[in-house]
C-alpha cells in the first residue's frame, strides 16, 4: 500500500518534469546548433584550394554548414527526448525498487557473463580454428586472444594496487618492463629456461615494487600518482640509456622462444610435433602461448580472489577506504601497502616475461606511458576492484580497436581515403567521455562482499 502511494505521489512530478520541458529542449538543441555553427565557420565553411597563381582560393560551403547544424539540432533533440523518457522510467523503477527491496540486494552480473567468458576463453583456439576453417587461418583470432589476455592479466595485477588497495599507480608498466627484461637478459646471458626465469622475473618485479613502495609510503592520491609516473619513466629511460646493459633503444633480440616444458616447437627430430606424433604446424607454439597466458591470467585472478578473503586482502580494501581508521585498528599500513605493490608488480613481472618470450624481442618502446594509461583505463573502466569488470574492459579496450580494421563499409560512406584506424584514439576518447557520463563508477561498480550472510564466518 505504502509503496503504491509513494509511487503515485512521485510519478506525476517526474512526468511533469520531462513533459513540460519541450520548449526548453528545443532551446537547448538550438544552442547546440549554434555552437556547431560557431565551430563550423572556421573549420568547414571555406575550402581552400590551390588557385591558378600561387595563392589559395576559398570556396564557400555554406550548404554543408547548414546541413551540419540541422543534423546536430535534430540529433540533440532526439537524444533529449529519448534520454528523458529513459530516465523517467528509471526514476520510477528505482523508486519502486527502493521501496520494495530496501535490504541489501546484491546484483551479480558475474553469474552468467563470468563463466561464459571463461568457456569462450578456454575454447578460443578451437572456435577460431572452426570459425576460420583451419588452425593457421584462425591465427589472427588466437593472436588477438593472447593480446587481450595479456592486458586482462595486467589489469588484474594493477587491480590489486589500484582497485583493492586504492594506491593510484601510473607507472605500472615499469614492472612489466622489469619482467620482460629479466627474462630477456637471464635467458640470453645465462641461458636459463623460461620456467626458471618466470618466477625470477616475478621476484625481480616484486622487488622493484617494494623499491617503489618505500619512498611513497606516506603519499596518497595525486602525489602518489606523480611519483609512480616518474618511476615508470625512470625505468624506461634507464633501459634506453644504459646501452651496455639493456641494448638501449635498439632493445634485445633473439630471445629464446618458449618450449613445451623443454621440448622445442621445431619441425625436426625431438620437436613438439615429432614427440607427440603430430604433423608439424607452427601454430602449436601460438596455441601453447595462448594457454600459457590464459593460465597465468587465471592464476592472477585466483590469487586475487583468495587474497580478498584473507586478512591481508581485507586490510588492502580497508586501506583504500580509510588509512587512519586502519592504523587505529592495529593494521600495519607499511606492510599492507608494500605487499600490495609487491604482489601487483609480481604479476606484471610474470606478464612481462610472457611478453618477452612471445615476441622474442624487447625494446623500451613497448613500455611507454601510454601502456600504463591503457592498463589503468582498463581497471578504472572495469570498475575499480571488480575482477570481471577488468576482463570485460580489457576485451573492450584492446579488442574494439581491432574491430576498426574490419569496418570497410565505412569507406563507402566517407570516401575511399577513409581509414577508420586513424580515428582510433578519437573513438577511444569518445568512449571514455561516454563512460564518464553514463557509468562513472565503471562497468561493474558493484563490489561483492568478501563474506555474506550464510557464508561461514571466519
Amino acid at each position: 500500500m505504502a509503496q503504491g502511494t509513494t509511487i503515485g505521489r512521485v510519478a506525476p512530478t517526474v512526468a511533469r518534469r520531462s513533459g513540460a520541458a519541450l520548449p526548453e529542449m528545443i532551446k537547448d538543441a538550438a544552442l547546440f546548433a549554434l555552437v556547431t555553427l560557431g565551430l563550423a565557420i572556421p573549420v568547414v565553411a571555406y575550402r581552400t584550394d590551390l588557385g591558378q597563381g600561387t595563392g589559395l582560393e576559398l570556396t564557400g560551403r555554406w550548404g554543408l554548414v547548414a546541413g551540419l547544424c540541422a543534423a546536430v539540432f535534430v540529433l540533440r533533440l532526439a537524444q533529449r527526448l529519448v534520454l528523458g523518457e529513459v530516465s523517467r522510467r528509471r526514476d520510477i523503477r528505482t523508486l519502486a525498487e527502493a521501496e520494495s527491496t530496501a535490504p541489501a540486494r546484491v546484483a551479480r552480473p558475474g553469474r552468467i557473463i563470468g563463466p561464459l567468458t571463461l568457456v569462450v576463453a578456454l575454447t578460443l583456439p578451437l572456435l577460431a580454428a572452426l570459425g576460420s576453417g583451419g588452425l593457421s587461418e584462425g591465427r589472427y583470432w588466437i593472436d588477438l586472444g593472447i593480446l587481450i589476455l595479456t592486458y586482462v592479466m595486467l589489469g588484474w595485477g594493477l587491480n590489486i594496487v589500484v582497485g583493492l588497495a586504492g594506491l593510484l599507480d601510473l607507472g605500472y608498466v615499469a614492472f612489466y618492463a622489469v619482467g620482460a627484461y629479466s627474462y630477456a637478459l637471464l635467458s640470453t646471458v645465462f641461458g636459463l629456461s623460461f620456467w626458471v626465469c618466470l618466477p625470477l622475473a616475478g621476484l625481480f618485479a616484486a622487488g622493484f615494487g617494494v623499491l617503489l613502495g618505500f619512498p611513497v609510503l606516506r603519499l596518497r592520491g595525486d602525489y602518489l600518482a606523480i611519483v609512480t609516473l616518474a618511476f615508470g619513466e625512470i625505468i624506461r629511460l634507464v633501459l634506453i640509456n644504459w646501452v651496455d646493459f639493456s641494448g638501449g633503444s635498439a632493445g634485445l633480440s633473439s630471445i629464446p622462444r618458449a618450449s613445451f616444458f623443454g621440448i622445442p616447437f621445431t619441425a625436426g627430430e625431438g620437436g613438439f610435433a615429432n614427440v607427440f606424433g603430430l604433423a608439424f604446424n607452427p601454430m602449436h607454439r601460438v596455441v601453447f602461448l595462448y594457454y600459457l597466458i590464459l593460465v597465468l591470467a587465471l592464476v592472477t585472478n585466483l590469487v586475487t580472489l583468495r587474497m580478498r578473503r584473507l586478512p591481508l586482502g581485507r586490510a588492502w580494501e580497508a586501506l583504500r577506504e580509510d588509512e587512519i581508521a586502519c592504523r587505529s585498528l592495529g593494521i600495519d599500513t607499511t606492510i599492507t601497502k608494500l605487499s600490495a605493490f609487491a604482489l601487483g608488480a609480481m604479476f606484471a613481472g610474470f606478464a612481462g616475461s610472457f611478453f618477452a618470450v612471445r615476441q622474442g624481442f624487447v625494446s623500451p618502446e613497448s613500455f611507454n606511458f601510454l601502456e600504463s594509461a591503457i592498463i589503468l583505463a582498463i581497471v578504472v573502466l572495469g570498475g575499480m576492484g571488480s575482477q570481471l569488470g577488468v576482463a570485460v574492459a580489457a576485451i573492450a579496450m584492446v579488442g574494439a580497436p581491432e574491430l576498426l580494421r574490419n569496418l570497410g563499409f565505412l569507406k563507402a560512406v566517407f570516401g575511399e581515403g577513409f581509414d577508420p584506424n586513424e580515428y582510433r584514439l578519437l573513438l577511444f576518447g569518445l568512449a571514455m567521455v561516454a563512460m564518464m557520463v553514463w557509468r562513472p563508477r565503471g562497468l561493474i561498480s558493484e563490489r561483492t562482499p568478501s563474506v555474506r550472510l550464510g557464508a561461514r564466518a571466519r
Partner: protein
Amino acid sequence: MSVAGINVLVDETRAQAAEAKAPLLSVRGVSAYYGSIRALKGVDIDVNEGEIVALIGANGAGKSTLMMTIFGQPQAREGTITFAGQDITKLPTHEIARLNLAQSPEGRRIFSRMTVRENLQMGAAVNGGKHFAEDLERMCTLFPRLKERIDQRGGTMSGGEQQMLAIARALMSRPRLLMLDEPSLGLAPLVVKQIFSTVRELNRTEGLTVFIVEQNAYHALKLAHRGYVMVTGTVTMSGTGQALLDDPQVKAAYLEGGQH
C-alpha cells in the same frame, strides 16, 4: 619447581596489584605540535581501570588532538604516555592498537564500501579474529540495528548506525580501554542517548574502561565518573562528573542554555 612456580604467581599478583593501583592510562606533561603550533601544552590525564572518564572542551581546545596523540599520531614531543604500565609515547599507531587500546575515531571513519560484517571483521583483526563469531553475536545483541544491517554497506547507513558500527568495530578487539571521540557528533538526541546508555551498560556489566571526548558536555559528564575540562591545549579543571556539572564556571562555559 613448585616453589618457583608459586613465586612467579606471587610476582604476577603483585604486578597486577601494582598495576591496579596505577592508572590504566596515564598522560603526563604531554605536548604535541602541528608544525610549529603547539596544540597540547603539558597535559596531565589519568584513566583508572573500570572508570568512565570524560574530556570536555570547546572547539579547537585540543581534545581530539589529545586523543590522536595518545594513539601516536601526532606523536607527543614532550611528556610520556603510559598504558597498562607500558610507555607508548613513541610507539607507532598500529602497535598501540595491538595493546588492546581501541578507538572510535572522530568522524566515525567506518569503511563505507565494506559491509557491516566486514567492518567488524576489520575490528577483530588485532587478535586475529579468534573470537569473531562470539563477538559478532555480542555486538548484534548490543546494537540490534547492526544485526538488521549486517550485510549492508557501511556507507549506506544513517549517521547513528554508523556511529554504532564505529563503536562496535572498536569493541571487536576486546579492548581494555575504549576511547570514543565525539560519539554524539551530528546525531539526533535520541540516538545519542541510546549510544551513551549502551556505553554505560558496558561499563557497569563488564567493567569496560572508557575515555570519552565530547563537546556535548552535559551528556558526557552525566555518563562519566570523572571529567576533565580542556581549554586551548591545557587541562583547566577536573573532578567527578557531578562536581563538574555543578561547577558554575563549567555551567557558564559549556552548559549555557540549560540541558543539551
